[in-house]
């Protein structure tokens, strides 16, 4: 009985509570995010960030409880992707905290690659402890290389505010938005209330990448078949120099583009994975270590069955590449799912991320003979399949302390101004050597002369520098056809000797170089394009540990093979199965067909 009464009372109280609650709902509803009071009609940045669910404040901060413009906008951020606020916006615990940490540690945010290489070569600093962030915070006295970095290089990084400075530079940077919010005209329809929000996307157009990646290794140019030219602006157009222009008063000429672009119209993101671009959380000392994609990842793929997880999520975000159901996807070297390379039954399809177009890939069951050749185990794909590489010989800096220049990081002028001159450019006949992964790879020059002048404008001979390095990178000029055997085995420049005549004298190889650096007043006794002497003595440094030109033994072997080439020109030729043995036989067995033939023409 007592229990019953209590139950009835509780029931009554419950009804009362609901009634009361219902009553209060009848009053004026208080919006959670009062921004919407003014910004009534704002389009969604993308399907994952609908304004109706997120409001404005969750990304743009500010004071959502105020209806006053001034107060409401007080702590607002225009670009939530900016790395200086991103911990409170994109990176807050409920959203993408893990990604933000990775991005902040990635080379695009730290610039560690550039800084490390500069400090290593200019100051001999082995262990680099400086990155972009430390330079932004500390006002410490800068060394010469750091000054060069801050004034000539630090215009390209993710910490840079978007729209700061002018021209192409203004379009760089902006943290997450730097990549995920492509450039667009800010569209305002009818006043502030109706507003088209810039789109957030994971389908990043290549223009976004190339506004930064168009200098130094110039990958963003080469891939599209653009070679930064000698600046003539020819052929003229009307009464002007032509329109094939790059930022900084530079021009380009057209050369064969990378086959991935030319044939398949692939964009940067088709290969470069989120882990490769945003990093995996490690603070790498070079871009190369951060990059995730390899040629083999697609052309010799490792397929796995994947259920849910990152691959599904990325496919969902992409919205063009088909869903992964009952399909296998390829895995990158760092274990990222290449969700756009899928195995459907026995067929392998590559899907372009921008439009989802399917491209069927032929993957041979067994490697072709030319990819299995004894002696070619160490060849990188690029060694044979890259048709050209931008080569900038002789980079002549003047550093004048009597002049001032803006520092990209502090955006303030400070004493010391840099100017850059060149000797010459080339693109053909890439030079080969051994890279840090012990592979035969392409090398391109980075040869620095620094002439320093003091505050009075006097030349400082002792502070001036000369540093000669050759750097290995993938030029992104891949072609289906490879270079010919002779292109590497018989070409002095490819071997690293530079342009010139290679000949034998008294049984030994001799080299007569074409470029005379000494007479060209460059202060060195080797040509700018020489990586190594014919005796295997290195002439230039490299920027990575372990990277080097061919040594004497390697040169000898490569050149020895050259003698056999026009006769033994097939990969499957038996003499190459064990070349050392073949040489021995050639020297000892006088009844070989070689000798027979020779006898026919030279009795």
């Amino acid at each position: 009985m007592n229990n019953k009464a209590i139950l009835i009372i509780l029931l009554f109280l419950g009804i009362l509570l609901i009634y009361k609650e219902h009553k209060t709902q009848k009053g004026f509803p208080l919006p959670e995010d009062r921004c919407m009071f003014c910004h009534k009609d704002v389009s969604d940045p993308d399907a994952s960030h609908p304004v109706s669910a997120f409001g404005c404040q969750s990304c743009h901060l500010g004071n959502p409880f105020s209806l006053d413009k001034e107060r409401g906008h007080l702590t607002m951020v225009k670009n939530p992707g900016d790395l200086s606020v991103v911990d409170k916006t994109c990176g807050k615990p409920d959203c993408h905290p893990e990604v933000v940490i990775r991005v902040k540690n990635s080379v695009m945010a730290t610039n560690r690659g550039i800084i490390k290489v500069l400090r290593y070569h200019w100051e001999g600093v082995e262990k680099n402890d400086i990155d972009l962030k430390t330079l932004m915070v500390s006002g410490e006295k800068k060394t010469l290389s750091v000054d060069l970095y801050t004034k000539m290089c630090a215009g390209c990084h993710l910490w840079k505010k978007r729209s700061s400075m002018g021209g192409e530079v203004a379009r760089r940077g902006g943290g997450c938005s730097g990549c995920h919010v492509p450039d667009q005209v800010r569209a305002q329809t009818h006043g502030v209330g109706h507003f088209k929000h810039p789109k957030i996307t994971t389908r990043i157009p290549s223009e976004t990448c190339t506004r930064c990646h168009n200098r130094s290794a110039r990958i963003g140019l080469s891939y599209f078949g653009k070679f930064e030219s000698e600046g003539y602006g020819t052929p003229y157009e009307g009464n002007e120099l032509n329109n094939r222009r790059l930022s900084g008063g530079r021009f380009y000429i057209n050369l064969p583009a990378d086959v991935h672009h030319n044939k398949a119209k692939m964009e940067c993101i088709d290969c470069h994975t989120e882990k490769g671009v945003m990093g995996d959380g490690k603070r790498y000392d070079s871009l190369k270590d951060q990059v995730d994609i390899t040629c083999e990842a697609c052309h010799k793929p490792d397929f796995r069955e994947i259920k849910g997880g990152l691959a599904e999520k990325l496919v969902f975000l992409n919205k063009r590449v088909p869903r992964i159901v009952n399909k296998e996807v390829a895995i990158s070297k760092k274990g990222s799912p290449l969700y756009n390379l899928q195995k459907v039954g026995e067929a392998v399809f590559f899907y372009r991320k921008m439009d989802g177009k399917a491209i069927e890939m032929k993957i041979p069951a067994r490697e072709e003979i030319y990819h299995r050749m004894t002696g070619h185990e160490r060849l990188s794909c690029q060694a044979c399949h890259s048709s050209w590489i931008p080569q900038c010989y002789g980079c002549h800096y003047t550093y004048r302390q009597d002049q001032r220049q803006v520092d990209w990081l502090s955006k303030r002028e400070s004493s010391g101004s840099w100017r850059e001159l060149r000797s010459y450019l080339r693109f053909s006949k890439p030079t080969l050597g051994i890279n840090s992964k012990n592979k035969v790879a392409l090398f391109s020059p980075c040869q620095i002369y620094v002439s320093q002048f003091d505050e009075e404008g006097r030349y400082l001979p002792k502070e001036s520098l000369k540093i000669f390095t050759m750097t290995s990178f993938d030029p992104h000029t891949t072609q289906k056809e490879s270079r010919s055997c002779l292109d590497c085995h018989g070409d002095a420049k490819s071997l690293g000797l530079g342009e010139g005549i290679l000949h034998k004298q008294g049984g030994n190889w001799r080299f007569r170089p074409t470029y005379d650096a000494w007479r060209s007043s460059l202060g060195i006794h080797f040509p700018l394009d020489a990586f190594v002497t014919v005796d295997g003595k290195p002439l230039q440094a490299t920027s990575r540990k372990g990277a080097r030109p061919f040594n004497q033994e390697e040169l000898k072997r490569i050149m020895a093979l050259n003698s056999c080439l026009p006769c033994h020109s097939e990969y499957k030729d038996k003499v190459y199965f064990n070349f050392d043995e073949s040489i021995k036989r050639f020297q000892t067995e006088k009844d070989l067909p070689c000798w027979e033939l020779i006898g026919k023409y030279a009795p």
Partner: protein
Amino acid sequence: MLGTYRKICAIMFFLLLAAGSLQAVIPEAVTDGDCLNCHEGIEHIGKGHDFDCRACHLKRQRQRVDSIQDHQFIIRNPSDPEHVDFFCGTCHQEEIKLINASLHATAAGIINQTRYLWGAQKAAYPPEYSANSTLKPLPEAVPHPNSPKTLVDDFLRRKCLRCHIGTKGAEGIGLYRASGCASCHVLYSDDGKYQGHDRAIDSEKAGYPIRHRFVRRIPLFQCLHCHNHNHVGGDYVGMFEHDYDKSYRSPVIEGYTAPRPYGLDYHYLAMDVHAERGMECTDCHTKTDVMGTGTVYGYEAEVPKTQCSDCHGGFCQPTPNKAVANIKSEGEAFLFRSNTSGRKFKLALFSKDVVSHNIPQHKEVRCGACHAQWSYQDYGLSVMRDDSPDYGKWARLLIQGDPYLEGFLRKELNRVANQPPVSPDWLDGNMKPGIWYSGWRARRWEFMPLGLDSKGKYAVLRPRYQYFVSYIDKNGDVVLDSVAPKRGDGKGVGWAFMPYRPHTISPVGRKCEGCHLNETAAGRGIFRANTCDSELFLPSPPAIDHMRLLNKKERDRLLRVTEEYRVKRFLDELTTTR
């Protein structure tokens, strides 16, 4: 019949009389003393010219005056084509006749080839026009050109003909020289400053010869006053022009950028081995090579010249040509005595031990096709004549190897209100409206495509040139917009690759793959698939009919591997001291 004979006699008599009256006669009143009062210490001009000052330097109509008060009637350079007949002609009629017919004076090669390529004449050969009056004089420029055909004479006059002996050309470091006989026979230093003892001459002012002296042995640096830039001559000492953009004003030496001889900076590449050993131009190039034979030639290779085989022997003759005066045999060996230095060189002889010298087909190959180490490969020449004052776009490109253009642009770029451009016509010496700018697509030294020269031998080709012609009128209206000219006989685009003899000789030849199995040498450019820019690496036919590109058969032969080729190449790789 007799009448005709008499008439001829009479004409001859009058001609002789007239010729006699033209001869310089030493006036009696003006004495050397008058001149030497000021020009104290001036050098004697040289053996064989024992005249006093007036004989050579006083205007014809003033030869008989009593005294001269000022320099009004003084001829600075009596050998200038305008005066040469009157002064030098007295004794050197024969030489004047020779030189006037020579390419140094006619520039017929440059003129007729360019006019043909730009569509102004039906053929480049035989030559129709010359810079002097030996052939038809080059026409005056057309006032309102509207095609490459109507622009070409102006282009030649203002851009190319700076280098012929009718003018003393532009002034600048390395470029100072005189005109006429003196352009070779009176030496100028690179800075154009006088180094003699004439007190009246300011030794700080440029534009004077080194000394007041005629020379017979012309040193290398004198030839380089004209034969510079990316032309034969420059290559002999290894010069290759830097690019024009201001970022190529390198290197910085001891805090300064180096002075720019001939108007530009240079890369120094491997010298010709003859230069390396200390030989100069005139060691090989004799009077006939340089001053001609009296025949009017249409292109350089037509002039009979000293051949490699004259000194080194060759396929046809194993030993040097005994007729060459400077070669003496000494036992088995042959010695060459240099004219310029007097040094003796033991001649390296064409050796049959070298595999490639033992291949009969190589008889048809120029020595230079293998022994040239590098070549001038200047691809895609864009030229623009602009009559409007629009200079801003050239701010980074004002150094184009043309000191006049550079000076003019520097002046105008510093001005607020610009003047319309004017530039000199090097033929008549007048300033004319408009100025020519130029630029390249790419310049390289490593490629050596092959073709057949006028004697049917395989030789290295160089682009000369792949023109893109623009013309902007004085209102800034675009009349011609990067037009590729059409040849005068309608045989396609006016771009040419010409066989030539690179003066970049290496004592060892290039490897077999310098030509064989070499797509670039065979004329297929450097890429398998070309773009609008890389297709400029593909050779176009020469401008003169009796030279040509390789035909399909020759190209295939070069790119095919025969059994014989394989073996010979192997032997070459294995054994030779190339």
